Structures are given as structure tokens and as C-alpha cells.
């Protein structure tokens, strides 16, 4: 039994933490709501090699396992970094047979987005607002093309959500249903990893405040009503961390387990991040409800992410169907 990150992965996480802390922040997420640029931005992520972590080396990537990408995504999630590594992870799966396109993904020279729903008018899709080339599923075939972008008013600007109508399309893979499903599961794992980082940060900030703020003559963290709320959020984060690691590991080491593990991680992420962000606001009281405080930026991310790539209900249903059909093993 060795269910822990290895030294390499811990180094990757530490490097990613330093990079993201220096190049992204909730403040940028706030500015994004008023038209500011997203941080760290696609180019910086590419320069760090983060967009190509799971892209094969022949295509200019690092050819590393999904778990490496997940530990980086967690660090990005902690500071609400954008664009999302979900797009990089998902596109890398879809472009497995397209080294030339994969190279443009890895080096950041092309802004890709993966479209959910029909390519005639997609559902709101992650990072589509700033993308120039789109991947979509068109009647069972994987297509790539340019498109007309219809953004909505952002609840969380860091997700770059927009609907897209493809204006050109070229078929990359004729019968792509399985590939598409796997890419979506991988995307769900990476989003759960970003949510893990966000939820963990919410607990840390909430705990720090509860250690300092005083009311009725003592620090509020000493009251069980406050303490237990934070503990429940923390326990949820630790469960989520286990499911994210397991799902990311399964993607490369036990693909038959990926559908169950990815849905379990994504369902858990939806509930855990939402609770952690709500707890963060509640622990802070009035100040946590202000525009200036970071709490609402995590809350926005949680409120949006819980519905992307399948909501909690969809993934709970998937977990139930898979479990009763024997996916847990003997």
C-alpha cells in the first residue's frame, strides 16, 4: 500500500504552488468580473509546461501521468487561476492522434476549448470565451473548427464560459464516443482537483480568521458552532483529496476504474467546495459578504463548477449505476 504522492510529485506541487502564488490571485478573479485580464493566462501556463503535462513528448509535451497534472491543478485552484487546466487535460486526450494540434495545445500558440453539447449551439463551455479553435462531438465524430462565441454575463469570470456555434468543422476521429467520454472523465478529475485546491484554501483562510477574531470575550474558533463547521469542511476536503488522487491514478493505471472514480470525485467536489466556500463566508460574518473580501470569489467558483461537466446529481446517478453493475469489483 503506497497511496501517497511521491517525492517527484511533491516537488511538482511545491513548484506549482510558488508559481501560482506569484502569478495568479483571487484579486485577479475579482478584477476579471470587471473586465480585467485572467491570470496567469494561457502563455504563462504554457511556459511553465503545465498545458503539456499529459501531452506526449513527441508532440512537445512532458508525457506525464494525469496525477502530475492533478497536483498542479490543485495549486491553481487554490488561487483561482485561469484558464483552467481542465481544458488542457481534456484536449490532450482528444488530440492523442493529432500530434501537430497537440503541439499547439502544449506550447500555448493556439487557444483551444472543448465544447459541451451540440456544436450548432454549445452549452456554456470552459475557456470558450477566449478560444480560437474548438473541439466538439458532432454526431459521434470528433471535430475541430472555428466558431462564433456567445458569452454570458459571468458569475465566475475565471472559467471563461461561453456558448459556441461552430462555423467550420473538420473530422478528426470518425467514431469518437468512447474517446469523448474518457476525455470528459479526465476533465472531471482535473476540475475536482482544482476544486480541491479551492476548498482547501477556504478552510485554511476560515481557520486563520477563527483563530484571531474575538466575540463575546473569546476567539470565535473556540465556539463549537464555528469549530465544528470548519472541521466538517476540512473532513470533506480530506475525503475529496483521496478521491481525486485515486481517480487521477486510475486514469493511467486502472482505466476500467476511471468512470466510477471520476464521477465519485466530481460529485464529492461539487458538494465539498460549495460547503467550504459557504463556511468561509459564514465564519467571517459581514466582512465575508463584501466585494472586497476574497470569500465570494471562491463561492462563485464553487457555484459554477458544481454544474460544469455534469452536476452532482448526474455523477451520483453514474456512481450508483456503475456500483450496482459491479464496478466496485469483488
Amino acid at each position, binding site marked *: 500500500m503506497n497511496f501517497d504522492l511521491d517525492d517527484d510529485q511533491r516537488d511538482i506541487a511545491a513548484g506549482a504552488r510558488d508559481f501560482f502564488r506569484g502569478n495568479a490571485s483571487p484579486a485577479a478573479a475579482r478584477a476579471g468580473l470587471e473586465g480585467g485580464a485572467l491570470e496567469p493566462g494561457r502563455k504563462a501556463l504554457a511556459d511553465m509546461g503545465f498545458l503539456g503535462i499529459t501531452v506526449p513528448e513527441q508532440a512537445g509535451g512532458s508525457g506525464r501521468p494525469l496525477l502530475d497534472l492533478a497536483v498542479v491543478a490543485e495549486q491553481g485552484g487554490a488561487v483561482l487561476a485561469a484558464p483552467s487546466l481542465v481544458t488542457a487535460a481534456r484536449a490532450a486526450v482528444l488530440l492523442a492522434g493529432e500530434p501537430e494540434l497537440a503541439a499547439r495545445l502544449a506550447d500555448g500558440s493556439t487557444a483551444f476549448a472543448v465544447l459541451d453539447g451540440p456544436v450548432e449551439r454549445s452549452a456554456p463551455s470552459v475557456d470558450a470565451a477566449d478560444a480560437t479553435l474548438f473541439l466538439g462531438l458532432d454526431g459521434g465524430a470528433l471535430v475541430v473548427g472555428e466558431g462564433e462565441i456567445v458569452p454570458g454575463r459571468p458569475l465566475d469570470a475565471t472559467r471563461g464560459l461561453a456558448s459556441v456555434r461552430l462555423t467550420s468543422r473538420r473530422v478528426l476521429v470518425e467514431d469518437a464516443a468512447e474517446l469523448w467520454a474518457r476525455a470528459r472523465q479526465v476533465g472531471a478529475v482535473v476540475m475536482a482537483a482544482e476544486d480541491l485546491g479551492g476548498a482547501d484554501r477556504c478552510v485554511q483562510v476560515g481557520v486563520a480568521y477563527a483563530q484571531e477574531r474575538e466575540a463575546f470575550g473569546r476567539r470565535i474558533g473556540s465556539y463549537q458552532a464555528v469549530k465544528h463547521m470548519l472541521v466538517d469542511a476540512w473532513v470533506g476536503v480530506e475525503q475529496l483529496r483521496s478521491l481525486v488522487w485515486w481517480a487521477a491514478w486510475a486514469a493511467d493505471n486502472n482505466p476500467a476504474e476511471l468512470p466510477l472514480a471520476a464521477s*465519485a470525485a466530481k460529485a464529492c467536489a461539487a458538494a465539498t467546495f460549495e460547503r467550504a466556500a459557504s463556511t468561509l463566508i459564514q465564519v467571517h460574518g459581514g466582512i465575508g459578504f463584501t466585494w472586497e473580501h476574497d470569500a465570494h470569489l471562491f463561492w462563485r467558483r464553487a457555484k459554477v463548477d458544481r454544474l460544469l461537466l455534469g452536476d452532482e446529481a448526474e455523477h451520483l*446517478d453514474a456512481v450508483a449505476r456503475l456500483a450496482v453493475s459491479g464496478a466496485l469489483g469483488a
Partner: protein
Amino acid sequence: MDFDDSPDEAEYRARVRAALEQHADELLRLAPGQEAVDARTHEAEMRRTQRVLHDAGLVGVTWPREYGGQGGTLLQQAIVGQELARFRVPALINHIGMGMCGPTVIAHGSADQRDRYLARLLRADDVWCQLFSEPASGSDLAALRTTAVRDGEDWVVNGQKVWTTLAHVSDYGILLTRTDPEKPKHAGLTMFVVDMHAPGVTVRPLRQMGGQSDFNEVFFDDVRIPDSERLGEPGEGWRVALTTLMNERVTIGGAGTAIGAPVEEFAEHAKARLPQLDPERQVLARQAVGRAVVAALGARYTGYRRLTVLSQGGIPGPEASAGKLAGTEAAHLMADAGVRLLGDDAVYAATADGEDRWQRTQSWLPGISIAGGTDQVLRNILGERVLGLPPEPRLDKTAPFSGGQR
């Protein structure tokens, strides 16, 4: 990262499995759907089962060899736990003795006590219980009122304990008493080994909400305990009790085995029952099933992380309390969904064909949220020891206990 045994672990697991197969006929095993056996009706078989396992080298895995143990690792202990569960051997009759009483005797007992008690405890020649909680002190254990008063070479004990698991079949217990009411509550306590067959000890079973009787109340009327049976110095009882409670946390927060039904059995139940619900109910029921499975998997894989710490030679810290909390939550969700899946039969104590597994689990779980640290006490431990939040002020911590009694 992997979920496989190391070569050493695999070899050890194979040895454990071989030993279990070899002694299969001599072991008490659970029937399908059964989770526990009643020590009241199966005492002899349970004692025999532990003795057989002991002689096969599967009991006291982590205990020093000089006390009859195997001198093994915590991970080997976890492997034995997993394999016993897989082989459907119920909890051993002396699980409290091994998990809590024995380690306390090892840490604080005299050489003479260790020689007399420990080997017999591991073989279940003697069964042990833990006499801590009282009617007026549960979570607030240090408020206990059972007194021990020095009289020559003896101490004379009077008072009442409660929620004492296995007291009705026990030969010995570790007993926490108040020996100095003029000291603050944590400072006036002393621990003893008590002979449960001594004159003045009365054990009365309590009936739980589910109808079973696993625990008891125990009365002490002028029970004499020789001073040589004291564990630790007079007034040091709280420190001694903490040894016991830390071991309890490791025992219950344990790594790699589920609280209640394993998720695979829950999934089998769902597979059989879901198609019998009408289609609209199935949609809702799958939500509940999915939620329970996610919670169970979250607890399981978090347990694997603790197991990894053991595997690398580490010792579980206070974060192990999160394992009991999360495992209990998953068990509640599975029991609730398990009962709901029964459709109309969910309102009865058993289905028409007499199957009552999920109803029994449902009525047993409220106790799990209380025993071995209530959900709320565990949250306090996690909040204060892991997250570093300030403790609640405790106004009675420094005042003499006698002055605290109103």
C-alpha cells in the same frame, strides 16, 4: 503510488490467509448478512476462536514478544484485521482488552501485573473490559464520581459505571476512580485493575434501542482492590486513561476496514432491490445509493492514506479521529439508503421473508455516533489538535472537584 502490498506485506498476508484456512473448522464465523455475534450466547466459542487465532500467531500482532505478542508492525496488524474481516471472523471477544486495557497495562503496569495478565489476555483465558463512563460523566470523563479510598494495603471502591461493553463476560477490568476529591478534577484520579469476580461487583445488562444487550451497568459496593493492582501513581489516573483513549482512537478510527457493511455488500443489495421499485422511485433511490457509495469510497481511500503512513512506519495522529467520523457518516448513508431500498417493507423491523440486516444496522448506528468519542467530541479533537483552533474555556478545570459538585 499503488494499492498493492509490498513483497513483505504480500508474504505476510499469504501466511495469514493460510493460517485462517488451516484453522477454519475451529473458528466462529459470521453467517451471510450477519455483522456481529452476541457474547452472551456465544462466549465459549468466542473465547475458543481467539485462543486458536492466538496459537496461530494472529493475536497481539504489535505486542512485544515478552508479553505473548508477535513483535510485529501496525501494518501487519491492519492486514490481520482485513483478513479476519474477509474470512468473516467476528470481532474477537477480547477486542477491548487487546485494543485498550492491555496497552495500558503494558505502559503503566508493574512487571508482576504484566506477567500475570498479558499472555492470558491475548489467549482470551481472561476477558477484559474498560470501566470508565458513569451515569454523570460520559464525554466529560474526568467528572467521574466512583471513589477509591485507601484502607491499609487495599483500596475500597464505591460507585457505578455504565455503558461497559463485555462486563458480563469479563474477568478483569481497568477501572478509573476518584481518589482525591480535593484536587481539580483531572488531578484526583487513579487507575486500577479490578477483578470482576470480586465480592461487591454487580453487573447488570442494559438493553439497547435495537433490542440487543451488548453493554452493562456495573456497581461497586465496598469492593476491595489491593494496592498492588494500581496502574500508575495515585492522582495520575488521567494520564493513564489518555493512554487507553489514544489506543481506542487507533482501534476505532482504524485503517482499511469499514464501519458497518462493506460498500460491495451495499451495492449487491442495491442491485437486487432497485429494479423492484417503481421507475420514478428508482431515480431518487439511485441518488441516495450514489451518495452513500461516494461517502464510503471517500472514507475507504482516506483510510488507505492512513494505512500508507503505517506502511512507512509512521504512527496515526489525531487525524485518525476523522476516519471514525467519515466512516460513521458513510455507514449512516448506506444504512438509510439500504432500508429505503426495501420499499414498503422499509417501515417494518424486517422484510416479509424475515430479512432484517438493514433495519438492524439502522438501529445500531446511533450508538456508533456516541461510542468511543461522540461525533461532537471528535470534532473538538480535530478542531483543536489538527486545525489548531482554540479550545473552549473549561471553567471546572482548576477548581477542587469537591467544590464543583453542587
